[in-house]
């Protein structure tokens, strides 16, 4: 397999990188939406993630990447197996691409046509959701995907389980993954109801500063010339991010959220007229993960401020004549709150 472009070698795009790292620390954050210009390294960043995460142990021959030590809801194959039996293997955290043209069968899984034809057996052929279990599911141009498919993906991502009832097949299997969707607003909007269901939403723009653009071009050129050497050069940086993520995951359950922070989160959501609890919850989870990434055990206002734009900007009511305003509005409310 080709050597992916190292995550740490991506120039700038700090908000996107932080959001992805937060989702890696706390997958319950509910998915990351990356919206913005083309050619900003969106898919490159997602593909660079596995190198930052510890490999996972799975049961060999299991199409659902089941955890040999995991107790919760094993897949249809592993469920029939004796616990603790079966050979295991170690694999990289899966990052599964969901191409725009993918049919529902390919995503959720379907009747295995070949086995049906050849052996006359009705069996289930797992889809992309099975393969993404315990990893990431990446959709480029998510705004162009059918609404019902996005809905389905968000449902599965939230419940951690894929339930299939089709073509005479009835099956359920674990599908816990972080959904990462990216898109370009020039191609169209995402339905507001769907927007709200993503945990974090980040805006990416291509760098306008010449020096920054030069650095992007330089690194890309070096990578194209010799991916292996480039990878070696950045392995130290990626290694530091990897140990940081590992420590952050371990630390996360013990991170304390003081009452003061809870109150600030509520006030911020009130000030911005964010409906529902989803915004507040994401805000708090994000702030905790952000503190864990800084290897701090208590959430501070700056952690809240760091994550607030990503956690809230896509939940604000839209003002048709003030299109670009949502990020600015969050910043303004933050300044008023924190002084």
């Amino acid at each position, binding site marked *: 397999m080709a050597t992916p472009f190292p995550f740490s070698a991506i120039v700038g795009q700090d908000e996107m990188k932080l959001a992805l790292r937060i989702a890696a620390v706390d997958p319950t954050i509910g998915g990351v939406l990356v919206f913005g210009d083309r050619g900003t390294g969106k898919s490159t960043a997602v593909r660079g993630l596995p190198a930052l995460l510890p490999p996972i142990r799975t049961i060999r021959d299991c199409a659902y990447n089941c955890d040999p030590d995991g107790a919760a809801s094993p897949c249809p194959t592993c469920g029939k197996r004796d616990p603790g039996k079966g050979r295991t293997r170690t694999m990289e955290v899966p990052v599964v691409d969901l191409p725009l043209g993918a049919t529902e069968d390919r995503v959720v899984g379907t009747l295995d046509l070949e086995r049906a034809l050849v052996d006359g057996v009705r069996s289930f052929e797992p889809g992309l959701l099975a393969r993404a279990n315990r990893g990431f599911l990446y959709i480029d141009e998510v705004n162009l995907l059918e609404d019902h498919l996005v809905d389905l993906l968000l449902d599965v991502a939230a419940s951690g389980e894929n339930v299939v009832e089709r073509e005479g097949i009835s099956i359920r299997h674990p599908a816990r993954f972080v959904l990462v969707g990216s898109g370009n*607003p020039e*191609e169209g909007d995402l339905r507001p109801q769907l927007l709200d269901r993503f945990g974090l939403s980040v805006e990416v723009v291509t760098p306008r500063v010449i020096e920054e653009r030069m650095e992007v071009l330089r690194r890309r050129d070096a990578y194209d010339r010799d991916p292996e050497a480039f990878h070696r050069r950045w392995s130290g940086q990626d290694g530091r991010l990897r140990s940081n993520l590992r420590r952050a995951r371990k630390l996360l359950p013990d991170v304390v959220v003081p009452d003061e922070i809870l109150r600030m989160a509520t006030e911020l959501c009130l000030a911005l007229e964010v409906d529902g609890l989803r915004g507040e919850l994401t805000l708090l989870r994000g702030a905790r993960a952000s503190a864990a990434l800084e290897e701090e055990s208590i959430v501070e206002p700056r952690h809240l401020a760091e994550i607030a734009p990503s956690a809230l900007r896509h939940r604000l009511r839209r003002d048709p004549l003030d*299109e670009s305003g949502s990020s600015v509005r969050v910043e303004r409310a933050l300044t008023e709150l924190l002084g």
Partner: protein
Amino acid sequence: MELRDLPSLAAALLALDARGVGGICIRGPTGPAVDGWLGFLRALLPGGTPVRKLPLGVTPDRLLGGPDLTATLAQGRRVIRGGVISETDGGLLLAPSMERITDEVAAALLAPLDHGEIHLEREGCSATLPARIAILGLDESRDEEEGPPRALLERTGIHLELNPRWTPPPVAPWIAAVDRVRRGMDDPPSEELVRTMAAAGVELGIPSLRPSHFALRAAGLIGRLKGTVDGDALGLAAALILLPRATRLPESPPDELPPEEVPPEEMDEPPPPPPPDELDEPEEEPPEEDSRQDEPEGEVEALPDQVVEAARAVLPPDWTPPASRGRTMRGRGTGRSGDETEDRARGRRKAVRPGDPRRRRVDLGATLRAAAPWQKVRGREPGQSLRIEAGDIQVQIRVRPLGGRSIFVVDASGSQAMRRLGEVKGAVELLLAESYRSREEVALVVFRDRNARVLVPPTRSLTRAKRLLRGLAGGGGTPMARGIERALELAMAGRRDGKACRILLLSDGRPNVNRQGLGGRRSAMDDALALAREVQRQQIPFVVLDTSPRGMDFLRELAGAAGGHAHHLPRADARRIRDRVTSEGWT
């Protein structure tokens, strides 16, 4: 060997590093020129480079690889085959009629183009196959059509307009030059080169860094073909990759260029590309190299403006940045509700369900899937044909998009142009902000001076329209006929996609430039009226908003000829225009 002949140069770059320069999209009708170019390219490509054709109707399993159903049935065991994409690893994927490539196919190409690999998964066993492909697209769409998917055009480096009269130069010197570069050292680009390309992207209003990256690679290769990476090498790279995407040009008219900008040895040469009849001249090894020996190796002093000038020098004299092209890809399956209507003949496949094969098109794959589980029960032995019953048959539900296309034709001539344009811009933005519900597309044609251009191709994206509207200019003559003609083309293309189209003309005066771009009041008015009558023949709703202080008789006459009517709106602002459009029942 004439490096400034862009088609030959493009072929040489593809032969040297097709992926590095991002492949190519050739615009123009197929014919001898394209055939000649393909032959020329094949002569330059290293032996054994796969060039695979991407058939228009390619199925996902043939494209990506997967189980081979026919072989599986015949042999009674699972047979898996690779797909066209992985079989083209290290080569070029030839896409004829690139504008008709389906969205599914385009979507499947994006990841291999970006990351050079493809993932195959079947029943637990999954494999990642190398797929270092580059696109060789032949875009045969006409100006009024949307063209290939934007996501694909973005990932295609060279955008070339091929003149139908182009013929290939003698190939021997090119083969020699390409071989020489292939054997030589491939040094990393210099700081100056990186800086110039990074800046050129900003200067030309190309936010994405992909084109800059392709152009950087191309400039390095051109420099090595030439012997030195100088301003001209950068200009050629920009002409192939950056300028076709430019959304603005730096403000520096060519006549202000100091004469020493043009290297003396190129002053006497005729402007490229070389006419075919000069091709029998004996060509030696590139003379450029020798004449450049006095310059230090790899020196780049060119600033972005100079690169743009150098690039313009190799483009046709009347070249302007082309309108932003490319269509939006759509997902598939069930669409958004209220957005589509069933169309058995021409729609796209939306869903599959059991049904009557005499009424709708049969979906073979789904039918086989429905029949498959029962084959054992029905007593089929391996090697026998399938036993399919009426209840197995699955048919396709096909739909076409509902919704309309409002085409604004705006008079940008004369003294009031800028004010009117500003208000129209506001109206378009207001309409698009509300179009999420109404599914209405908006397009904008602007006419002024001698010509009309599609400033905003049909879009529903406010963001996209806003960006395109930034480049508005005004003043000059009034070629109204050309404006109506462009709008009519957009309307006809929209109608072919099943959209209800309408034209809204905003003007405050009478035309004075005719359809041929020549001055003269009478013929300009006659041409505009003739096109208006064509609008009526095609039964396209037509409304004129007359923004002159007292109302123009000609505009009333024009609206009548088109079968529509004129409204006098002397103080038309954004909201009034929007209200007028809405009250026509258009959105």
